[in-house]
């Protein structure tokens, strides 16, 4: 399939996206650098990276919800054929919340504390689906039920502070899926939650994905969390996608030293009784642009070429791409 034909089939098609922020020292920080990513209908794609890798900026760019100092400097984002970067605010509002739902990391600060959760869900379906106040309330109850909140009839009139963290995140998900969206962007949806609740919330997202047939972008710093759930995984570093592969292949045959380092640093992969692998050095300063591999200063495989030439994003197998001069070598390992 040619790349153009493929782009046409995709629900979401991001091409060459660049996002910049201005930091407190008035320096321009290039948070997302030339990122291209396609999401197919019904697919779950995980975007994984350390903090500062650009994964949240990428997610928020799609719905144009970058914080004040952020701006998209180039690239295109096509959603079901519509150019989101050229869209008028009015058209965007019709898509946000209706065809694209967002689940933020911290449900406490993204829900309105002065409004019942029922009202907050109802508001969305009134606006986007034109439901009457009464029907919207019924819909809110049903949605609470769908996301697994017991006693929805009573809970619908309660306030966010009356819900636990996991329950609030379920409410956020209810809002995100209330209009049966085509795409849900979930930004670290379970980071603040217990492992048991984490599993429940991710199971819920997965179940709804099958039920509604929606696509999901799952943004996380934890490779283990997305393993076994995502269809494909994109690993970001320094604003760029360093590796992208089908999930199963990424975990067994990572073709990038950064992905391998992330896997090695997980607590279950201790190298000695009292030592976990530590990725040496610090994440890159994104206000500096280098014609080199951003990971080279921390990479154990780096050679002269790595600090002289930026590696391209090349295919190592079907749907498996890596940005490394030694991608083939890692892939064969």
């Amino acid at each position, binding site marked *: 399939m040619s790349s153009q034909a493929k782009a046409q089939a995709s629900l979401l098609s991001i091409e060459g996206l660049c996002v910049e922020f201005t930091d407190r020292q008035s320096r321009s920080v290039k948070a997302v650098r030339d990122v291209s990513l396609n999401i197919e209908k019904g697919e779950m794609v995980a975007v994984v990276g350390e903090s500062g890798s650009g994964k949240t900026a990428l997610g928020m760019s799609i719905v144009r919800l970058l914080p004040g100092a952020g701006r998209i400097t180039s690239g295109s984002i096509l959603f079901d054929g519509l150019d989101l970067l050229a869209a008028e605010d009015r058209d965007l509002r019709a898509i946000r919340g209706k065809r694209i739902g967002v689940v933020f990391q911290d449900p406490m600060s993204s829900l309105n504390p002065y409004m019942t959760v029922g009202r907050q869900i109802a508001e969305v379906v009134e606006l986007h689906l034109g439901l009457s106040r009464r029907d919207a309330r019924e819909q809110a109850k049903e949605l609470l039920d769908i996301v697994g909140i017991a006693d929805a009839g009573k809970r619908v009139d309660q306030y966010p502070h009356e819900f636990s963290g996991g329950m609030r995140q379920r409410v956020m998900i209810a809002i995100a899926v209330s209009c049966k969206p085509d795409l849900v962007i979930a930004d670290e949806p379970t980071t603040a939650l217990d492992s*048991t609740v984490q599993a429940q919330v991710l199971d819920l997202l997965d179940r709804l994905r099958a039920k509604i047939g929606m696509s999901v972008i799952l943004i996380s*710093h934890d490779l283990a969390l997305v*393993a076994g759930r995502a269809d494909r995984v994109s690993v970001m570093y320094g604003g760029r996608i360093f590796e992208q592969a089908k999930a199963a292949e990424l975990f*067994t045959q990572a073709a990038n030293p950064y992905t391998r380092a992330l896997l090695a640093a*997980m*607590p279950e992969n201790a190298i000695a009784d009292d030592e976990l692998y*530590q990725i040496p050095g610090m994440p890159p300063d994104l206000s500096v642009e280098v014609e080199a591999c951003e990971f080279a200063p921390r990479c154990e495989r780096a050679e002269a070429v790595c600090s002289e030439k930026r590696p391209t994003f090349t295919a190592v197998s079907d749907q498996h791409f890596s940005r490394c001069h030694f991608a083939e070598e890692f892939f064969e390992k």
Partner: protein
Amino acid sequence: MTELLRIEDLVVRFGGRNGVNAVDGVSLSIGRGETLALVGESGCGKSTLARAVLRVQRIASGRILLDGEDITHISERQMRPFRRRMQMVFQDPYTSLDPLVPVGNSILEPRRAFSLPKGTNELAELMTAVGLSSALHGRKPSELSGGQRQRVGIARALSVEPELIVADEPVSSLDVSMQAQILNLLKRSARGRGIAFLFISHDLRAVRFIADRVAVMEKGKIVEAGPTSEILDNAQHPFTKRLIEAMPKVVSG
């Protein structure tokens, strides 16, 4: 191993006579230099138990002994020398440091509070020990990364040479790569300095790496306790099994 901390039948009650026992008859002990992980879901009472051990939470009944001495009901004045011996590392490195105070001063503050020598030499040593460049001592917390701030929190706890550190979810707000660095640091502190840890976490992956023993808490009670590998590989209690079940797993090549 000599016993450092002993908790006997501890009860913490919220809401008076008709209230609930947030900690409901817990007995535990931690040996010198030992790391005990306390695991359970949020709301199970693990943080309340930790606060009771540090005597910042009212105790309804039961006893807490540090190094053989009963500290359950002693006065705040009598408590002072014990406070130096028990330190805390918090979950959130963003809110547990004073944003206006240079981190070097934050690290040495506990020494001043306990009238120890000011320790300017110790500052460089402490910062190096936790993997911070001592050149950062003049920085404000906002100028540091999350991982660096957590190192400051640990240096602060280490500064008064405690025998016990209570660490409440110290890595759960950090990235995998930062987590590895902080877990290494905590384990090295336990081994190298002989510090005992009460490590509170819901993350069994971190627990397996760091803990000598594990106690599983559900609804204020300890439902299962034992050596780490025994609990994690051969859990008996259904609640423990459920926690293990929920743990994300990766099969990597």
